[in-house]
């Protein structure tokens, strides 16, 4: 089966299968991705992130409906966590998107994290690319809503929307460093709930404070929505458009994408190295023994990593974290 050709020919089935291969880390996928690559680079990618219960799915649903009115085709990747204990997952985001189900201009894919941290799955980036090649104009990634660590998404998307809801305590104060900075657009969803105005003020104050420390040409707008009623969705859509215009004009879009390619190459190399190591040099059993060795104090991770790399012909000094997963 030639999935790439199918995808370029508009086959949803081929697209779906390729994404499965990507998720399963099936080697066949990369040959198809290589063929698709020349056809990518046209889609605009939006990330929607925020805490659980913030209304990300509903917002994704409504934003997509608004985009469809403009004849934009949309791909959605909705990420949910896998259970660390069983490896399984219940992916329930489609429930709130059932109106989009039969729209041929929309493709929805549920994706489990399969142990990957950062709010997206390992295959998310490549799946975005596949959707891009398939011809979707806009791709929306809805991240896992587990906490405030979903910052991997910014490596994949052009515009990051951070969804907050009033009445969940002192959100801004408790926000970890770095999370505020990822937002290109703030959404205050459930804006009819008490505390919405206060939340807006808090965000504005924080943005004002940040201005003194960083020079930021783009000042993230704050959009209030009541997603279930479809309120504020047009404004959100406009905000995304404005951000896109800004990125294009300022040249930041190009820079972002360059950065992304760089990271991608690195991560491909990393993955390949790990794979080679795991498949050719250390079986699961022997790896367990290596780990035992370290735990029992007979060796240390630094020496071990160096030795392993030597086996595949790389001689380095390990200085920092990372490397072996």
């Amino acid at each position, binding site marked *: 089966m030639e999935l790439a050709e199918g995808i370029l020919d508009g086959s949803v089935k081929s697209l779906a299968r390729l994404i499965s291969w990507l998720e399963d880390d099936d080697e066949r996928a990369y040959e198809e991705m290589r063929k698709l690559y020349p056809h990518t680079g046209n889609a605009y990618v939006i990330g929607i992130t925020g805490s659980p*219960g913030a209304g990300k799915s509903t917002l994704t649903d409504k934003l997509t409906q608004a985009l469809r009115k403009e004849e934009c085709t949309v791909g959605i990747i909705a990420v949910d966590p896998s259970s660390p204990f069983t490896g399984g997952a*219940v992916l*329930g985001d489609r*429930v*709130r998107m*059932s109106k989009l189900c039969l729209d041929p201009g929309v493709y929805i894919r549920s994706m489990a994290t399969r142990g990957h941290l950062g709010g997206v799955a390992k295959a998310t980036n490549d799946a975005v690319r596949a959707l891009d090649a398939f011809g979707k104009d806009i791709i929306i990634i809805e991240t896992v809503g587990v906490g405030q660590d979903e910052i991997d998404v910014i490596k994949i998307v052009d515009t990051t929307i951070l969804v907050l809801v009033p009445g969940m305590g002192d959100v801004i104060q408790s926000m970890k460093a770095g999370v505020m900075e990822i937002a290109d657009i703030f959404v205050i969803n459930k804006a009819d709930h008490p505390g919405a105005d206060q939340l807006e003020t808090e965000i504005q104050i924080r943005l004002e404070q940040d201005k003194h420390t960083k020079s930021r040409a783009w000042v993230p707008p704050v959009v209030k929505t009541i997603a*279930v009623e479809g309120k504020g969705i047009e404004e959100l859509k406009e905000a995304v458009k404005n951000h896109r215009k800004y990125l294009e004009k300022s040249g930041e879009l190009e820079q972002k994408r360059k950065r992304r390619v760089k990271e991608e190459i690195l991560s491909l190399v990393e993955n390949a190295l790990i794979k080679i190591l795991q498949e050719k040099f250390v079986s699961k059993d022997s790896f367990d023994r290596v780990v035992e060795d370290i735990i029992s104090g007979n060796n240390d991770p630094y020496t071990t990593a160096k030795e392993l790399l030597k086996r595949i012909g790389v001689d380095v000094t390990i200085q920092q974290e990372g490397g072996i997963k």
Partner: protein
Amino acid sequence: MFDKEKINDIKKKREEWESSTLKKVLDRFPERKKKFTTISGTEVERLYSPLDIEDFDYNEKLGFPGEYPFTRGVQPTMYRGRLWTMRQYAGFGTAEETNKRFKYLLEQGQTGLSVAFHLPTQAGYDSDHPLSMGEVGKVGVAVDSIEDMKVLFDGIPLDKVTTSMTINAPATVLLAMYLAIAEEQGVPFDKVGGTVQNDVLKEIICRGQYIFPPQPTMRLTVDLIEYCYEHVPRWNTISISGYHIREAGSTAAQEMAFTIADGIAYVQACIERGLAVDSFAPRLSFFFNAFTNVLEEVAKFRAGRRYWAKIMKERFGAKNPKSMMMRYHVQTGGVTLTAQQPLNNIVRVALQAYATALGGAQSLHTNSYDEALCLPTEQAVTVALRTQQIVAEESGATETIDPLAGSYYVEALTDKIEAQIDEYIKKIDELGGTLKAIELGYIQKEIQESAYRFQKEIESGERIYVGINKYVMEEPPLTNILKVDPKIGEMQVERLKKLRAERDQKKWKEALDNLREVSKSDENVMPAVIEAVKARATVGEICDVWRDVYGEYRPKEFV
């Protein structure tokens, strides 16, 4: 209830018993299980004695029948005065067929009607809607318009029977049809009696027949309550339902707690509308499940009555005792029935009916033994009805009031369940009330956890279910089962076509336009709905107006 000296004496005797008589036996014959629990997972002690209800204050906890806190029952004579209403839920196929079964049931001694509507009616769709495909006439009777309703009650005098209708989000529409027919029969509204379920919150929590978002759907609920208070005084305006919560997997205490939480939300909404609590509260009614664990069910009913009375009196300042009474209908547990060895279900239903009688219900539906397999056949329905007649006439449960009162076990369990209810109500208050707790998925998750726990207990063999994980046997499939004629769908669609072609178009349009305006305003919708159904507007058309004005509810799924 016991004096100190006596208690100390019992305590001493008990200790002696434990260290001698009991110990000797336990040493040689350990008990069957380490821990005994009710079907809800509540731990049950080996033995209950006065020690378990040491501080029991009779007057405070039980009182007398027909008096606060109504633990012993809502009427002073209970079943010595009048037996509960035997009300079998029925409905399938076309209005003609259900009309026939209604008449059959009335001939067999049933004392009230209970209408099951097919799912399209319950979800506010006409029989020709795409989502109605395959559903027409399946789990209830197909009612699209007042014409179907007329056929359904043909030859049944609406001043002589009371009718319960299982209808929620579109309750106003079906009540409007019923009232319009009563009017045609020449029965004044104040002679019309019955119940609409009208409990939209539990649809959102667990039953799935929702249409509109919580706020507007609550508005329709309150409109109905307000209208009936003024015009249909004998109508039970809501049947706040724990039945489905239990079916969805809750424990007995959760069933009672979440139903009371819903009840609190409705009372609150009516008060916010400006209704005085004692004006509408006497017409509130409840609907519960009964499982096979007889004593736990009895304790649940007693605890619920007592807790609701306290809430109405203390939280809402009700003065009229009728406002504090938890009057309720019971249906035996649908999920307790097994498809395996279906005749065993007759025994389960008998025990459940017995629990209901001992618990003091106002009306009862007993399930048919074949319901885990199909819609009940006439024979199965008759056995079910006979089951409750045997409980009423032969078992002795009806001869004295609240016969289990004073049982150390039942009183201790009643107290325990009441404490569990209280804990849940406090938690829900903390979360910001029932609507908020539903929005957060708290109630749904609690129910699902219990369902999951129960399933695990069954599969591990920790809990025995006859015919499922013990005493299993091969058996031929049940053959005599009721099937709905698949042609009903086409017939109903034809009927709709005809209705739409023949009705007075101008009158119809005006009625719907008026309904739209009223629905946007603060005015009570009931009069406009009655006009619309008289103008032959269908259930689907009326609900479409509201879908347009109010939007549609999309559930949050919590798995």
